[in-house]
């Protein structure tokens, strides 16, 4: 998979699929937003957004987006890669953060996955609040 061009896409966006991923009082993104599920291969992100209350670019029932700087994600030792053009579910606007342990089994893998979830959450901030949940 090709690296996402950070010159063209200096920022990437994480769709907020659960409103509890963000604490509006403390203005803090929670680590769970970056915790992989057992079926995930990486953290799904968008390269371009432009959602409105009516339209969701990701075609998800999301409540908004977090924004991260592409190069700062790479600074954590992670990869940001475009979808494979040959893949059946290829989407031009989709990228993935790879390098987080998938289905961590050992104590060290679990610790690293949690650690990275913290780091990614700390790099993130609220970009779009679709239904004004966080006002």
């Amino acid at each position, binding site marked *: 998979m090709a690296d996402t061009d950070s010159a063209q896409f200096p920022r990437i966006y994480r769709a907020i*699929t*659960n409103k*509890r*991923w963000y*604490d509006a*009082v*403390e203005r*803090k993104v*929670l*680590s*769970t937003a970056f*915790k992989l*599920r*057992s079926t995930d291969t990486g953290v799904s992100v968008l390269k371009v957004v432009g959602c409105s209350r009516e339209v969701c670019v990701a075609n998800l029932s999301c409540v908004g987006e977090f924004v991260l700087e592409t190069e700062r994600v790479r600074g954590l030792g992670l990869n940001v890669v475009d979808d494979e053009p040959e893949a059946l579910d290829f989407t031009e606007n989709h990228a993935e953060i790879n390098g987080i342990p998938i289905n961590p089994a050992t*104590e060290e893998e*679990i*610790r690293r996955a*949690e*650690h990275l979830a*913290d780091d990614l959450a700390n790099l993130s901030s609220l970009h779009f609040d679709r239904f004004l949940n966080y006002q």
Partner: protein
Amino acid sequence: MSLDIYINNQLPGVFVVGSPLTESSASESTVSQRVRASVNRLLNSAKPSTNEPSAIKSLADLQVGQHLSPVGSFLEPLVIIDLRALREEEQNSEMPITDDAFPRALETLNLLHLFLADTLPRTHLVPDGEGGIRIEWSRDDRNVRAVIPARADQRAYVYQRTGRDSKIEPLSTTALVEALRSVILAQ
């Protein structure tokens, strides 16, 4: 109308007509005020219209009308109310909170409330997207999490982090209380 309130200083709880209030850190007067306010609210909501003679002369009369059931809920710790709300929110999701995860989270939070009560910063309850529950606390660059998976045969653990140092331990009340005291509550 009189109301018996039992406050036991030896146990971290207050008992009112059989409903436990887990308010170990609150002063007796504060708890008493809360109890009185709650009961007054209850009585006001149960008052008949002014045209009818009042049938409510004692707390026992309220029990007959099943009006006492709300007492337990609005005296429940807020975090437990939030846990129930989380389960409701996730009920129609692809992966609802499981029957393994919910009681374990309930027990964990109830015990935690007994030990640490109001000393903790905001508790975040978040679904893990697979039927489990993640409970998060943070202060500055310090984090503690209790991770309760969807199934009982999966690994539940406590994660703690201070700066760049982090570690995990199997989930137990002891491990969680210790992590919170040493990481989140430490000065």
